[in-house]
C-alpha cells in the first residue's frame, strides 16, 4: 500500500510521508469578522493510513475549525487563508482538496473522507427512518446499486457497529443516544472512506457507552484500515486509543508526538498542563488536590 503512494506523492505534495493518506501543510483559517480572528494558524500534520490521530485542545482552540477545513465545510465569514490539503488516494492519485470544484467535492466527501459530527446524536434527520437516511447516501454516491444491494449494505453497516438491523425502520427518536451515535458512525463508514474525522463523537455519552463505542471504532479500524482523526478535549482518552496526538492551543499545533512519548514526557508546557489536569484513576492518590492547595493553579482558572 505504501509503495503505490510514494511515486506520485513526490510530484504533488511536497514532503509527503510514506503511507500518508492526508497531508495538511501550513493551514490557516480566518474568520472574517471585525476584527478578523485567525482560528487555525499554520497547522501542519500528516495522517497515516490506518492510524488514529488524536487532536486535543480546549474549547476555542480551533480543532473543529481545522476538521471543517479538511472537509471543505467552511462558509463565509470563515475562509481558508493559506495552506495546502492533499489527499493521497489508495490508488496512487493525489487530490488537492482545496482546489476541488463543486462536483468533484461532492464526489470526494463521504466517499474518500467522512465525518462524524459533534453532537452526532442530533445530526440525524428526525422525520425519516434510519433506512431512508442510509439509502439516500448510497443512492447519491452509488447510483448503480440495486434496491436489494442498498438494503444489504445498510444492514451490513449497522451490524458492523453493533446495532440490530431491525432498527432500520426506526426513527431517530426511537433510539438511545448511544445507538444514534452508532448509526452516525455506520453512516460515516457506509462508502468505506479512507479517512473518518470524528469530532467529539462520545462527549455527550455516558462513560460506559463511550467505552463501547470506542471499542467499536478501534475494532473497525483494525478490520477496515481507515484512518481516524479523533477530536476531543479528553486527553486521557486520546492517550489510550490514538497512535499519535496533536495538541492545539490558540489555533496552533503546539505539539505532535506519539501517545507513548507524550505520556512519558511532553515537551510543551501547555501539554504538561493539560496532562496535569487529569487525576489518574489507578495511579498514586494525587496529594495535589487534597493536601496543599496550589494557588497558582486556582488563579489561572
Amino acid at each position: 500500500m505504501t509503495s503505490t503512494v510514494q511515486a506520485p506523492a513526490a510530484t504533488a505534495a511536497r514532503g509527503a510521508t510514506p503511507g500518508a493518506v492526508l497531508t495538511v501543510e501550513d493551514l490557516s483559517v480566518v474568520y472574517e469578522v471585525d476584527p478578523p480572528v485567525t482560528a487555525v494558524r499554520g497547522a501542519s500534520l500528516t495522517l497515516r493510513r490506518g492510524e488514529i490521530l488524536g487532536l486535543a485542545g480546549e474549547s476555542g482552540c480551533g480543532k473543529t475549525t481545522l476538521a471543517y477545513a479538511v472537509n471543505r465545510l467552511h462558509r463565509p465569514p470563515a475562509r481558508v487563508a493559506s495552506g495546502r490539503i492533499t489527499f493521497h488516494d489508495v490508488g496512487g492519485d493525489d487530490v488537492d482538496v482545496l482546489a476541488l470544484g463543486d462536483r468533484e467535492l461532492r464526489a470526494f466527501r463521504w466517499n474518500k473522507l467522512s465525518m462524524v459530527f459533534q453532537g452526532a446524536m442530533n445530526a440525524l434527520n428526525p422525520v425519516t427512518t434510519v433506512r431512508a437516511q442510509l439509502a439516500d447516501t448510497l443512492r447519491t454516491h452509488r447510483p448503480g446499486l440495486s434496491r436489494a444491494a442498498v438494503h444489504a449494505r445498510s444492514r451490513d453497516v449497522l451490524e458492523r457497529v453493533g446495532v440490530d438491523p431491525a432498527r432500520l425502520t426506526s426513527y431517530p427518536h426511537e433510539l438511545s443516544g448511544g445507538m444514534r451515535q452508532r448509526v452516525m458512525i455506520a453512516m460515516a463508514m457506509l462508502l468505506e472512506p479512507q479517512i473518518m474525522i470524528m469530532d467529539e463523537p462520545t462527549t455527550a455519552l455516558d462513560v460506559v457507552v463511550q467505552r463501547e463505542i470506542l471499542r467499536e471504532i478501534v475494532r473497525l479500524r483494525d478490520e477496515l484500515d481507515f484512518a481516524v482523526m479523533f477530536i476531543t478535549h479528553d486527553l486521557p482518552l486520546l492517550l489510550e486509543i490514538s497512535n499519535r496526538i496533536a495538541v492545539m492551543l490558540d489555533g496552533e499545533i503546539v505539539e505532535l508526538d506519539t501517545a507513548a512519548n507524550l505520556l512519558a514526557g511532553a515537551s510543551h508546557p501547555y501539554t504538561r498542563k493539560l496532562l496535569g489536569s487529569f487525576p489518574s484513576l489507578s495511579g498514586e492518590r494525587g496529594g495535589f488536590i487534597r493536601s496543599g492547595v496550589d494557588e497558582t493553579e486556582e488563579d489561572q482558572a
Partner: protein
Amino acid sequence: MTTVHVTDLVKDYSIRSGLRRRRLRAVDHVSLDLVPGRTVALVGESGSGKSTIAKILTRMEKPTSGTVEVALDDGTPVRGPMYLRQVQMVFQDPFASLNPFHSIEHHIARPLLIHERTRTAAQTHERVLEMLERVNLTPAETIAPRRPHELSGGQRQRVAIARALAPGAQVLIADEPVSMLDVSIRLGVLNLLGRLQREDRLAVLYITHDLATARHFSDEIVVLYRGRVVERGPADAVILDPHHDYTKLLAQAAPDPERGPERVTAEAVIDRDAIDNSVCYDHFLGEWVQAGTPAARGARAGRAGQPA
C-alpha cells in the same frame, strides 16, 4: 457545623404513555450521611438517580418516602426556612445558573439579604467582596459590578460557589460542578471546593460521573445504579478494589492513559444486562448487603463519624 442523615429515600415519578400510567422509581431506598469535613462522591450513569437525590436534598423535589434529617452540632434539628440556610447547591451549568441581567454583586448580595446575614448596604457590599475574595475572584472590586457574560466559565462557577456559601451554608451539594468547564480549569475549581471544605468544615456531596476526580476529591464514594446504591466505601477502596459488577464496568470504562490501545479491545466485557442491582457491597462493613430495601439499623453505626 451541620450533619445530614438521609434514610431510605424513595422517589417515584409517574410516567404517562397514552392512557396508561406507569411508575418509575428513580431513587430506591438510598441512605447516606453527610458529615462535616467529609466529601461524599455520588457516581453513576445518567438516569441513575444522582440528580434526583440532589434535588430532594435541596428541597426542589419532595421524596415519595424516606427522611432527610439535618441537624446542627448541638443536635438541634434544622427545619423550615432555616433549611436552605444550611444546605445549598452548586449547579452543573454556570452559564445557565447565573442571571445574565444581574451583576455578580447582585447574585451574592441576594442570599445575604434574604437570609439576613447582613443589614446595611455597606455591610452587604463589604461581605460580597469578602466572598469573592474567598473564591479567588480578585480584584473583587472590579469583579463585583460585572455581569456573568464578562466572566469565563471557571469564574462563573466560582461565583456560583460564593453564592451557595453566602447564606452561611454548611452543607454543599455540588451537582457535576466542573463537567461543563474546560479541562485545564477543572482542577482549579475542585481545588477551591476542597480548600473551602477544609476551612469551613463543610459537608459536601460531590455528584459526578468522573471516577478519577471522585477518587481524588472525596473521602467516600457511593455508586448508584438504576436508583439503588450498589457499592459504597472509602474512595480508594471503591475505585481500586471494586466488588460490584457495575463498579467494575465503570472503572473499566473510565479513560486510563496507563492502558494502551490494545487494552481498549482486549479487556473482557461485562454484560450490562446481567448486572444485578439488588445487592450492594459495603466496604465499611466488608460484606454484601441488600440494595433497594430499608437500611439495616446497624449499618449506620458502622459509617457515621468515620475519620476524614
